[in-house]
């Protein structure tokens, strides 16, 4: 759905001198199944993830929710439905799986990735990044180091945007009510761009902004970090 986010992640990591592979045998982390109540169906997805990513030093995902699922749900599924061997495999892979901002700031020790993005931006901390992964201010550090980027603080930033996976469909009215407030806060900043580390939230917030022709849009953190003078994203 969002190939540009994947490409941007590759560009950022490549620019920092890393050898990045996208193993085509991967599919999905299984979060949708687990969160909707279909835990057993997630087992093959958990097995595949642990298997496909075992040989790598680090696994990076531009998604707080996927990494949250890998770190906090995969072991539970493995314990409940899988073998003891799977539990060990899963825990080993989870220990080296990182959300993008975590990887850049904590593992690589970098906050300036050499990006240029001359726009007014506000940052929405997604619930998984904020509360499950506790990425804290890493994305803010990265954004502050982006050349020409004007960063504006988002009011009530820690309030959920209302996506919540299948919640956005099953409880569409409440989801929309939460979206309304998130959009209002984004627009109050006067920012052109709302960014975050999760395409799911961005799809929801961006879809809302686009529907009301608000004149602001969403862009993934990876895409901002990938932007340079030679290679602008907008």
């Amino acid at each position, binding site marked *: *759905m*969002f*190939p*540009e986010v*994947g*490409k941007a992640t590759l560009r950022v990591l490549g620019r920092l001198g890393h050898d990045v592979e*996208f193993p*085509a*045998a*991967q*599919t*999905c982390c*299984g979060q*949708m*199944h*687990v*969160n*909707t*109540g*279909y*835990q057993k*169906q*997630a087992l*093959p*997805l958990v097995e*595949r993830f642990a298997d496909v990513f075992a040989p790598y030093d680090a696994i990076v995902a531009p998604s707080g929710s996927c990494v949250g699922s890998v770190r906090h*749900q995969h072991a539970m599924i493995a314990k409940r439905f899988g073998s003891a061997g799977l539990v060990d495999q899963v825990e080993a892979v989870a220990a080296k799986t990182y959300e993008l901002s975590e990887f850049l700031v904590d593992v690589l020790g970098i906050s300036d990735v050499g990006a240029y993005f001359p726009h007014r931006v506000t940052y929405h901390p997604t*619930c998984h990044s*904020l*509360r*499950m992964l506790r990425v804290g201010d890493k994305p803010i550090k990265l954004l502050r180091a982006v050349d020409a980027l004007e960063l504006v603080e988002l009011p009530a930033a*820690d*309030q*959920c945007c*209302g*996506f*919540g*996976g*299948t*919640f*956005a*469909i*099953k*409880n*569409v*009215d*409440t*989801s*929309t*009510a*939460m*979206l309304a407030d998130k959009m209002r806060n984004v627009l109050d900043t006067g920012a052109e761009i709302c960014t975050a580390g999760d395409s799911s939230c961005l*799809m*929801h917030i*961006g*879809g*809302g902004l*686009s*529907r009301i022709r608000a004149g602001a849009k969403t862009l993934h953190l990876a895409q901002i970090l990938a932007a340079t003078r030679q290679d602008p994203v907008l």
Partner: protein
Amino acid sequence: MPPPAPDGVGNLRGVEKFPVAARRALADTQLRRNLGKATTTIRAKRAQVVAELPDWEQLREAGRQLKVHTMAQLPDYLAQLEAAVVARGGVVHWARDANEANAIVVDLVRDKAVDEVVKVKSMATQEIGLNEALEAAGIAAWETDLAELIVQLGHDKPSHILVPAIHRNRAEIREIFLREMGDVDPALTDEPAALAGAARQHLRRKFLSAKVAISGANFGIAETGTLAVVESEGNGRMCLTLPDTLITIMGIEKLVPRWQDLEVFLQLLPRSSTGERMNPYTSMWTGVTPGDGPQEFHLILLDNGRTAVLADAEGRDALNCIRCSACLNVCPVYERTGGHAYGSVYPGPIGAILSPQLTGIEDNASLPYASSLCGACYDVCPTKINIPEILVHLRAKHTETYANEHRVPSAEASAMAAAGWVMSNPKRWALALRTGRLGRLLGRKRGVIGEVPLPLAKQWTDARDFTRPPQQTFRDWWAAEHGGER
């Protein structure tokens, strides 16, 4: 399996599924404003008083451990509590469920030959529908907590576990008082002081004349047989000391082992609930003291599905709740829908995990889904109940129960199975993603997909545009760039 709370009595089950009830509540602009204002204010207060304590996280962990420890040995502690209460002149009754509890209370009150009682706010009594049972027996139960009084006079149901009348504003309260309070001044204004004054006048007569009081309990100490009520208004103090007979109904999970343990909970509760360093009135009583206070004390221990909750290893932490309501006050869903939409007197995040476990999951199947799993509740829970994890567990419990009880899988289960099948094979998955580009037939005008009046697509696109699928999937791009397989 221990039995759930019985149907046909009490207030644990709504008549509508959450999404339907929520839709209506969301359109109530008065409710939205009331809730938004109240929860925003109380969130700020709580945050401030919590920040004052350097050992808040240690307190939370202590609270959690005390509760986990207690639940693991509940039968022993309950026996200890009973012995301690009886030793100090109290009487202990065991009520398996709401019906038994109501019957015990009605019999006790009839025994005293009175037709009215005063009540201290108690969510447990709301849970079992005690007021309705007393009314059916010709006994008037006067709520003395201001918010519960408002709910009672308004012929309403509580919508919050701490501030039950949060859905009412002062203009509405004035109207209710004028209409229902027999002795009120017709020139009553809606100034908070005037409203409180009217309530005080109305209640004072009741306090001084009632022979029987009914209360709940925030805590019950096994070691000493002491009960504790933590309150703001003083009506508890009045009801617990003036009448001759006191009947207390307490959920069995309210137990704490030792007197010393109150040190932890009395720091956790006021800061988490009303955002105060200390609440105005904390009353503690043990059995009966001759010549002082009630001369007859009855403690009714209530199960009503709690043992069923205890039997679920992944769900039992819901019993660690000390009813502070911090989770309600930070929940973005509760803030917008209010408590009535949940259909149970326990709404919000804790309600979403407790109500379905008390009633049996299928009687409240929509509640575990009434959450975006944002986790704000877990961050503020004073006993560190991992509400999001239990919500996910209950969602699984629901789908498994549904599958066991139905020969034909639900549409959702079939869709999930199909998605799982596609996702478990990379070639199938890559093909599915590639096929998604068919969506590019839409969204050509604006570059995004607008309204699509088909099932499921409609739910998204009624309120939001949808991203137009890309020309080329990421996988196909990678394969092209790196000469690999597609």
